[in-house]
């Protein structure tokens, strides 16, 4: 059927708007990358917009491999925290969800106990006091990993999925002599693989992007995560995070520097964003599915 003229106009308009919107996402990154490799003079002359003016990867080299580089330390911290928090968070959530999917003594009590925490919390300061004064976890990895493990919301989502597992399957396993843990592991878990994948992705993303706990619970760069490192380089511009200074401040030495501080800051943005940007297209479907099936909170 022939499309009407107004329909064609609308469709052109539609493609245009969506393209413009997509450009608002692509162009900032092109701009940032361009600045990260451009010449010092061009940057200062407001000449760098979408494309580089000159091309120099020194900022990247220094940030990654320079003598004062802490990028890989930060990367390592982020990776460890992500793996541990995801694994523990998922495991504990699965166990709790399994229990809540069954009847047991005190179920109502525990249900209220868990759900109340979603509505009401002690606030930042009591939490801070707990971790620093009573647990003595200041400047430890524990402070960065453990608080993020428990999430009642995910427990509820998983529980709903578990309740949909046919009773016949779980009962057959029990008749065969399996204990609860085995039932969970070998019967229920395989049946909700999709949910498990989705929830673990959310845990992982959350852990990967963490920076606030680093800020309030540590004061050593050895604990920095990638995001916190980025914050210091670009947003609060801490002295220890800049890398283009060799310490030599003679006029001659300063004259030799042909990189712009922005080269380093922009390089940091790109380097910190690359891991996520390269992975997310392949796992986006888990997030979409997770959002829809459980209305998972962002």
């Amino acid at each position, binding site marked *: 059927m022939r499309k009407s003229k107004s329909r064609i106009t609308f469709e052109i308009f539609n493609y245009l708007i969506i393209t413009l919107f997509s450009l608002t996402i692509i162009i900032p990154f092109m701009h940032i990358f361009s600045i990260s490799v451009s010449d010092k003079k061009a940057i200062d002359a407001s000449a760098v917009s979408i494309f580089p003016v000159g091309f120099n990867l020194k900022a990247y080299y220094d940030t990654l491999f320079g003598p004062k580089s802490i990028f890989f330390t930060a990367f390592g911290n982020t990776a460890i925290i992500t793996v541990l928090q995801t694994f523990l968070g998922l495991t*504990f959530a699965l166990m709790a969800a399994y229990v809540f999917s069954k009847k047991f*003594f005190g179920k109502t009590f525990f249900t209220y106990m868990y759900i109340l925490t979603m509505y009401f919390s002690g606030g930042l300061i009591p939490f801070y006091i707990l971790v620093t004064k009573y647990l003595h976890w200041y400047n430890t990895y524990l402070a960065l990993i453990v608080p993020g493990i428990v999430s009642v919301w995910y427990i509820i989502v998983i529980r709903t999925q578990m309740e949909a597992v046919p009773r016949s399957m779980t009962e057959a396993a029990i008749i065969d002599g399996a204990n609860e843990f085995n039932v969970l592991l070998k019967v229920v878990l395989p049946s909700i693989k999709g949910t498990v994948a989705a929830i673990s992705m959310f845990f992982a993303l959350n852990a990967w992007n963490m920076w606030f706990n680093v800020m309030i619970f540590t004061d050593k760069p050895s604990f920095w995560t990638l995001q916190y490192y980025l914050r210091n380089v670009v947003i609060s511009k801490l002295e220890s995070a800049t890398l283009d200074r060799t310490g030599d401040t003679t006029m001659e030495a300063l004259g030799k520097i042909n990189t712009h501080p922005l080269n380093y800051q922009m390089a940091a943005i790109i380097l910190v964003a690359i891991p996520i940007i390269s992975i997310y297209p392949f796992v986006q479907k888990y997030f979409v599915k997770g959002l829809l099936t459980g209305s998972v909170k*962002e």
Partner: protein
Amino acid sequence: MNGLTAAVKQPNYKKRKGNRIKFSAGRDLPLFALLSPSAILIIIFCYFPIYGIIIAFKDYSPFHGIIDSPWCGFKYFTAFLTDSDFWRVMKNTITINLYSLVFSFPAPIILALLLNEVSKTWFKRLAQTISYLPFFISWVVVASLVISVLSPTTGIINVILNNLFGIEPIYFMTYSKYFRIILIAAGIWKGIGMSSVYYLAALTNINSELYEAAIIDGAGRMSQTLHITLPGLRPIAMVLFILSVGNLATIGFDNVFLLYNPLVYDVGDVISTFTYRIGLQELQYSLSTAISLTQSIVNFAMVYMANRLAKKYGGWSMW
């Protein structure tokens, strides 16, 4: 659809005394074992801080600890309720949330409607994938992008303004008049892609027979959108809207904290950043806790009511 099933009241399966579940070691002990890790973590990280709320009524000092710090009643509550800084911050929080509601709420809906009209699958998929990118990157990356893009002299906005229009560099991030726009625009940019999936899913759930019947009846595109598409989105939109309203008194910390600076505190300082500064930078632990507690209670009431309304009108429930 969902609204219809919600209107049908479920029979009330309230537990009668005779139906209480009795303890059975064989059944319950293994379950308690499975429950214990999360339960212990919840007691430590959720309930101990809830107990710690009492420092709002004490002159807490780290030296004395929670128990030994002296009581002082409502001293800190009176303090902040009579502090104009607090009310400014409260006003900022609600204002930003209201602006957000007006602009951020429709954005994903519009994107979903536009994407839905795209016939070329590859374009739609590509656009969607690109639109999800801001969701995945952290607020640190987003804030870094915003600050860099708006940077005077070197940021692309100023570069264009300077080269094309000869305008002097504008220090966008230092002006209160720009801050709300920047904050909300960044928020939309970050969330619109992922949020649109709710609506796109709802759109695919609309019965195509409705459209066919409408076309037969001679309805144009506009009419179809008004009478079929939008009503089809109503349940999920209602639920999300009510939940957003329920969060009017809270606001995220990350985005504001990373984007603001003292020059824009008058419009940008919100309850979350305020309590953070009071508590962890000015070390007024009790005062910060008092503010937090009040805010928690207000928020609890609002979220609870919002959930009730969402359940009633959208058939959606937290549990």
